[in-house]
């Protein structure tokens, strides 16, 4: 379900009281939030949602493809490494966008994983020397403009990714 979230009344009030003579522009971000079980069966549908969001945000088809790869890799990592493919466990996926950018957040409480700790694959290496691992997170970093990973005091881990329309 897709809906617009207008600024709260209190936000409009404070904007009007601080700058009564200025017109302010509403910041309207669209947001989709889901709880998914840790299973790869939903990856295709998640890709469809990402394409929709990317299109609405104004991305080119090539960049929509990039966003689809990044969200697929991020969710796959969460499902396989964070939640160890245990489909009784859930993760929260948030896709939010406005004209010009998309943000993707994944919240989960699984095994700690710091993308910074994964070494970059040697993408110049010949076939026989290529490692099959580490490509997923490499793609996420390469395809998105910002990638951050954090853990809050309750142990909830968040992967945040942002891409801007260029």
């Amino acid at each position, binding site marked *: 379900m897709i809906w617009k979230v207008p600024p709260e009344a209190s936000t409009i009030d404070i904007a009007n009281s601080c700058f009564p003579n200025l017109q302010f522009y509403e910041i309207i971000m669209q947001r989709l939030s889901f709880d998914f079980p840790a299973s*790869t*069966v939903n*990856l*295709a549908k998640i*890709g469809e949602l990402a394409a929709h969001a990317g299109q609405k945000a104004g991305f080119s*088809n*090539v960049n929509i*493809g*990039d966003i*689809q*790869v990044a969200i*697929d*890799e991020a969710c*796959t990592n969460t*499902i*396989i490494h964070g939640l160890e493919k245990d489909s009784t466990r859930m993760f929260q996926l948030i896709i939010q966008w406005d004209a010009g950018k998309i943000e993707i957040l994944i919240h989960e409480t699984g095994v700690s994983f710091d993308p910074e700790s994964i070494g970059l*694959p*040697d*993408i*110049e*290496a*010949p*076939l*026989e020397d*290529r490692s*099959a*691992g580490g*490509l*997923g997170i*490499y*793609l996420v970093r*390469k*395809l998105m403009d910002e990638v951050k990973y954090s853990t809050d005091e309750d142990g909830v881990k968040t992967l945040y990714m942002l891409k801007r329309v260029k």
Partner: protein
Amino acid sequence: MNITETTQDNVSRVELEGRFDANTCGTVEQFIREKIKEGMLQFVLNMEKVPFIASAGLRVVLVFARELQMNKGNLCLANLQPNVLRVFEISGLKNAMRIFDDMESAARSFND
């Protein structure tokens, strides 16, 4: 993921249909593993009907290409859609893998 296969001149032509991601890569892996067990050493994957590939799919392709190369076999790819080719390119696999524009050039490459 649907897989159909035909063998011609000792080359297994494997046509994949569907997303090649963490959810479907196991099906492809199992299929090729079976064919290798039967003694097949040369493969062309027809990617014409693969609209999307993730690193899980890249990994399967990479592992078999490397393994077959070490056993005097070969695995090459043909008919990649532009966005799929882009993922190979960004991962640095475009040059490491044998990628062809169509099935015939891919099959011909085995005679070289």
